[in-house]
């Protein structure tokens, strides 16, 4: 973490994101923020609250309702040297923009042999746990992680959110920044005031332990942490790794932990088949097979749409009980 100021202020994740955006606008005139309802409304989660009033309607502006247009226009702005920071209202509404992402956002440096590059950030709330309507709780990070040329960042704490978002905006290449809706206001933390960045590609050791490694990110970190706490009460040492960035992936931290524990659990709330959890499993199975003492267990969502049925949706999303069960399983193996 590189920081210039160290005074601390307690804030929620959404406040930390707002703080990072304000700092970015302040420090770099090329930064422009846009999306649906990000202006006077301040976004449906208030992540851009007050920014238009402070920085004007040229720097922070509402677009028409069209996600391909938002990302496509951002690409053009990036080609012309601005630093576009787009908000997509929910990650599930990124889908109309996927053509722009897969066809261009990740390819522009490559297709112009570095003559152009796209210093663009696309922010989107993602994930479940708060009873949103249909398609408002999707977790599409695996699609982006499989897209060459884009980075993927998913913070799990206010402090990380601010430092990672500033790093993402300063990164010369496109970054997807997914924000767990569940964490927007549920957690408060002391966050440094002023500018600091957390480099992309460095995982965070949440808790240390010798017996089991649990790898997760975003909204699943608190779930894993609770399961780890419960396991500790039973004398099981669980090491929780918060990846923070999926691309670049901090393979070093993962493998070091696996070499120590020999037992791996991967946790995401995305559907099982083809989720990013599987990429982590594959990496471990390719790089650290000799250290494994148990199967690599996946605790994930199901191969079904995230249910829009409030009363049962909590059974879709991994919870501490399910993670604890996986911990018992690998310990008993």
């Amino acid at each position, binding site marked *: 973490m590189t920081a210039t100021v160290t005074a601390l202020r307690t804030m929620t994740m959404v406040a930390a994101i707002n703080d990072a955006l304000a700092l970015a606008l302040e420090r770099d005139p090329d930064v422009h923020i846009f999306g649906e309802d990000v202006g006077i409304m301040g976004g449906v989660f208030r992540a851009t609250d007050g920014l238009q009033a402070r920085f004007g309607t040229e720097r922070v502006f509402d677009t028409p309702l069209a996600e391909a247009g938002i990302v496509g226009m951002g690409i053009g702005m990036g080609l012309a040297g601005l630093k576009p920071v787009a908000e997509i209202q929910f990650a599930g509404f990124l*889908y109309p923009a996927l053509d722009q992402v897969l066809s261009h956002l990740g390819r522009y440096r490559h297709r112009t042999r570095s003559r152009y590059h796209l210093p663009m950030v696309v922010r989107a709330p993602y994930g479940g746990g708060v009873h949103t309507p249909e398609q408002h709780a999707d977790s599409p990070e695996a699609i982006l992680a499989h897209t060459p040329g884009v980075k993927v960042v998913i913070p799990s704490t206010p402090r990380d959110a601010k430092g990672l978002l500033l790093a993402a905006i300063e990164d010369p290449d496109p970054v997807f920044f997914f924000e767990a809706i569940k964490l927007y206001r549920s957690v408060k933390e002391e966050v440094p005031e002023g500018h600091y960045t957390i480099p992309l590609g460095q995982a965070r050791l949440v808790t240390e332990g010798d017996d089991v490694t649990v790898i997760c990110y975003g909204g699943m970190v608190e779930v894993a942490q609770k399961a780890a706490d419960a396991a500790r009460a039973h004398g099981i040492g669980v090491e929780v790794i918060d990846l923070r960035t999926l691309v670049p992936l901090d393979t070093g931290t993962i493998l070091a932990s696996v070499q120590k524990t020999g037992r791996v659990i991967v946790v995401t709330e995305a559907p099982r088949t083809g989720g990013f959890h599987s990429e982590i499993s594959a990496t471990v199975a390719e790089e650290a097979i000799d250290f494994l003492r148990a199967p690599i267990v996946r605790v994930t969502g199901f191969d079904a749409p995230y249910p829009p049925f*409030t009363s049962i949706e909590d059974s879709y999303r991994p919870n501490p009980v399910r993670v604890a069960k996986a911990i018992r399983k690998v310990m008993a193996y």
Partner: protein
Amino acid sequence: MTRTRSSRKTAAPPAADPMPTPSPDEMVQLLTPGGEVTDPARLPDPETQRWLYRLMRRARHFDERAWVLYRTGRMGVFPPYGGMEASQVGTAAALTHQDWLFPTYRDTGAALTYGLPIPQTIAYWRTSPHGWAMPQNLKVLPFYIPIATQYPHAVGAALAEARRGTRNVAMAYIGDGGSSEGDFHEALNFAGALNAPCVFILQNNGWAISVPTRAQTKATNLSRRAEGYGIPGVRVDGNDVLATYVVTREAVERARRGEGPTLIETVTYRIKPHTVADDPSRYRTAEDTAGWDEKDPVVRLQAFLLAQGHLTEAEDAEITREIEAEFEAALAEADAYPEPTPAEIVDHVFAEPTPALRRQRAELMAEEAS
């Protein structure tokens, strides 16, 4: 007052008044807010007027009750449509149950008018699976949440009807905001090119959450987009149910005759918040909404019917009683729906679950049991 939705299903639909496509700048209005009739020849007959009035009252009642139920925790977050009844009722009333209806989250009033049972509608807004299991005898889809995707679906359903040689049509709704999405464009162009029997309703209610239509587009007349696809476009006073009904009937008949799709822009206003959980004071002032209360579509027709003697105060009170009774009975029915079980999460993905889903179902059941 006795012609109900279900009786219309079997009865032959009343013949549409022949209506020339107006020039795009003209906004069709049959009954002014002041109660004047602009074109008596095109006015639907009194029976139809009363029927539309009752349907609007019924739609409004649902909207009002939904607010109350939300506040008392008996309903989920609901996108209100109060003030937009003429736009939804007049259009949906032009369909039979052989026709398709593709409503958005805003269009509960349209779905109720089409015939979606109230208990099920309540269940949907309670986010209960019962609200999603659409009735076999209707061709209405669950309210669309992602914006604009329903438009191409309507083209496909309409084309399927045409390929099968029926005279059925498909109607889809969209908002002013939704009309900015690429799917809007692709659907209108497909429908024109493939001559699909579609009626596209574009409800221009002035807002897409916090974004006013003037920021959504530089165009001031969205019905003109139809020209770009070589299809007719009509702009209609969306708070005049007689006008929306007549215009839509004509479009439906045109589609039934195999003459292709129509785009209808209903000019209305979202006087209510975006959803019951939204606070519009963040983005609009009293000035913004000024004048729209006077255009209330229910009040407009009510005053006209009373003045014309097509409705008495006593009949009006009877309508209120009937509608309330119907709703309360439906609410009781909705309350009695059993709670879903977690198995519903993994069921209904494929006709035959994949091995992976079968394993996952077993895991889920084991966890729920423990």
